């Protein structure tokens, strides 16, 4: 994309500068898309700018950036109103914490401001989209995605229309994901969708094995990698997801599905209580040289 084309391109607005918000921002910037990143906390945005710059280098290092494409410009702001009052966004992605009330409040404000037909995406690992649709002006414009972390490296994205999402909004969102070279897989709206419904209870079981002294975290992961071909092992995956986010998602699954395997085990709860949230905090099941927000 040329510099002039980038100036004219509609921006992606990302709300929430946590792990997923910065990852999705990195993905879009790497593909030349201008991004406005919003967070209520200026300090979080300052850290996000550093993380995005680091992640763009990581993406280049691992061959995840398209050839001959200069990164898009990044704008950060603490004002959602300001972010939405500029050029009409191509898509708005809500990527705030995995809490239905917090997500609903952001989605309500976005929905009341952007023009009809603009896809409004809630990035969630577990919350049913139609439940969030109760908070928006036009449920037809709302759909869910479940990007995996790091969003700029993992090329498949779970896409979740609600029962009231318009077909042309789903098509527009899939087109945008295609421009970011992602492969969307559309699934029916349900707590945890497909990936979290399968993955999160398995991680919870893995943590429970460590809690019961059956094996160390290193050995659980080594067995899952060596015997079953898991790329990293479930507990290193937990560190990458963020153990606080994992517990929130397990809570959502447990409340809505009733599966006791989704009740967060004591070891996960203790790690959250102690601030050992995984890679982003520098410590989880493993220690990390530095925090990666």
């Amino acid at each position, binding site marked *: 994309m040329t510099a002039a084309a980038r100036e004219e391109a509609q921006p992606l607005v990302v709300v929430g500068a946590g792990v997923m918000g910065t990852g999705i921002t990195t993905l879009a910037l790497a593909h030349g898309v201008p991004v406005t990143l919003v967070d209520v906390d200026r300090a979080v945005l300052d850290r996000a700018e550093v993380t995005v710059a*680091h992640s763009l*280098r*990581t993406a*280049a*290092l*691992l*061959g995840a950036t398209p050839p001959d494409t200069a990164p898009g410009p990044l704008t950060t702001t603490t004002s959602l109103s300001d972010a939405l009052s500029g050029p009409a966004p191509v898509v708005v992605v809500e990527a705030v914490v995995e809490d239905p009330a917090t997500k609903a409040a952001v989605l309500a404000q976005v929905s009341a401001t952007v023009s009809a037909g603009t896809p409004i995406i809630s990035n969630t690992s577990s919350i049913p989209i139609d439940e969030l649709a109760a908070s928006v002006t036009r449920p037809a414009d709302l759909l869910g995605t479940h990007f995996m972390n*790091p969003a700029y490296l993992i090329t498949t994205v779970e896409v979740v229309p609600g029962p009231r999402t318009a077909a042309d909004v789903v098509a527009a969102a899939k087109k945008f994901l295609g421009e970011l070279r992602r492969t969307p897989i559309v699934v029916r709206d349900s707590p945890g969708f497909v990936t979290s419904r399968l993955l999160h209870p398995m991680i919870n079981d893995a943590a429970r094995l460590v809690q019961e002294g059956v094996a160390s975290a290193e050995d659980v992961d080594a067995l899952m*990698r060596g015997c079953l071909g898991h790329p*990293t092992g479930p507990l*290193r995956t937990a560190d990458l997801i963020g153990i606080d986010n994992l517990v929130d998602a397990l809570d959502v699954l447990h409340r809505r599905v009733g599966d006791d395997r989704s009740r967060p085990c004591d070891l996960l709860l203790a790690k959250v209580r102690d601030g050992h949230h995984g890679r982003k905090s520098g410590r989880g099941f493993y220690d990390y*040289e530095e925090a990666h927000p």
Partner: protein
Amino acid sequence: MTVSATPDTIEQELIDFLETRTKADWTPTRDLFGEGGLSSLFAMELVVHLEQRYGVAISGANLKLANFRTVKAMVELVVRLRDGA
């Protein structure tokens, strides 16, 4: 920052760094991400380590995984960048 280290010194320092970080044994030619089993995300930590330790800037065509796949490849990269090649 160690800008005057010899290739042999850089090689030994990198092996020491890897052994401290990964708690595993390394040789100059062992593939970190293949047989070594390290996550490719760890490669970015190596980029930052080389830049900070040896005062080189790694960008553009040099920012590719092949340059970080073995200790030997990293030593060659540092020497090349430091000598301004």
